[in-house]
C-alpha cells in the first residue's frame, strides 16, 4: 500500500473536484440557478501561463498553490493555513481590451459572476469534504484581464490541522 498523500495535496485535489462540480442546473432553495456558468475543465497549475487558456475550452478554472504557513498550536498538533489563487477564465467572444465595450454582458459583469460562482461553491463547502477546518475567500480581483477572455480571480486560505501521529 502506498504512503498517504499529504493533507495539503488532498485539500488541493478536493478543491479541484469541488470547483469542477459547478453546474448551471443546480438550484437554490427558491428554485433559482445557483451558478451562472459551468467550467469545462479545472486544472491545478504551478504557475499561470496564458497559453493554458486553450480555445477548446469556453470556461476554465486554474488553481495554483500559494505559500502554506503553519505552527504547533498544541503538543504534537499542528495548525496550517494553505493559500490558493484561483483564476476562472471564460471566453469573452468580444474584445475585452476595449475600454467602453458595451456589448452585453459587460466584461465586468462576467468577472463578477465568475467570482460569485467560485465564492458560493467554496463557502458552502468550506470544510472541503471534511479535510479542512475552514476556508475563507480573502481576496477577489475583478480587474485582471486577458485579450479575448473574461477573468475572475480569488485567493483563499484553507485552515487545517494534523497530529504528528497521523503525519502532515
Amino acid at each position, binding site marked *: 500500500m502506498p504512503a498517504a498523500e499529504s493533507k495539503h495535496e488532498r485539500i488541493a485535489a478536493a478543491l479541484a473536484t469541488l470547483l469542477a462540480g459547478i453546474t448551471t442546473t443546480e438550484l437554490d432553495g427558491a428554485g433559482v440557478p445557483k451558478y451562472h456558468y459551468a467550467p469545462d475543465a479545472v486544472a491545478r497549475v504551478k504557475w499561470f501561463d496564458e497559453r493554458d487558456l486553450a480555445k477548446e475550452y469556453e470556461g476554465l478554472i486554474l488553481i495554483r498553490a500559494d505559500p502554506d504557513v503553519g505552527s504547533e498550536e498544541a503538543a504534537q498538533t499542528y495548525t496550517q493555513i494553505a493559500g490558493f489563487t484561483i483564476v476562472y477564465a471564460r471566453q469573452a467572444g468580444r474584445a475585452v481590451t476595449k475600454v467602453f465595450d458595451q456589448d452585453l454582458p459587460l466584461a465586468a459583469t462576467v468577472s463578477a459572476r465568475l467570482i460569485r460562482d467560485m465564492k458560493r461553491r467554496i463557502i458552502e463547502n468550506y470544510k472541503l469534504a471534511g479535510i479542512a477546518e475552514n476556508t475563507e475567500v480573502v481576496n477577489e*480581483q475583478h480587474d*485582471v484581464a486577458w485579450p479575448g477572455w473574461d477573468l475572475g*480571480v480569488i485567493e483563499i486560505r484553507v485552515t487545517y490541522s494534523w497530529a504528528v501521529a497521523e503525519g502532515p
Partner: protein
Amino acid sequence: MTLEERVDALEQEVLALQANLINALELVRSLVAELPEDPVSISEQIRVGRAAANLQREVLAARKETA
C-alpha cells in the same frame, strides 16, 4: 516638349510621389498606434492586485486604530 517642360513635369511627378509616400507613412503610423500593447501577464496583474489589496487592508487597520 522642351527640355525645361520635361524637367517641370518630372518635378511634379516627384512631388506627387513624395505626397503618396508621406500619406503611406502616416497610414502605417496610425495603424501601429492602434495596435494593442503587449498585455501584462496574468501573474503580474494578480501580484500587483494583491499588493494593492494588502495596502488597502493596512489603511483599513490604521483607520480602525485611529477611530
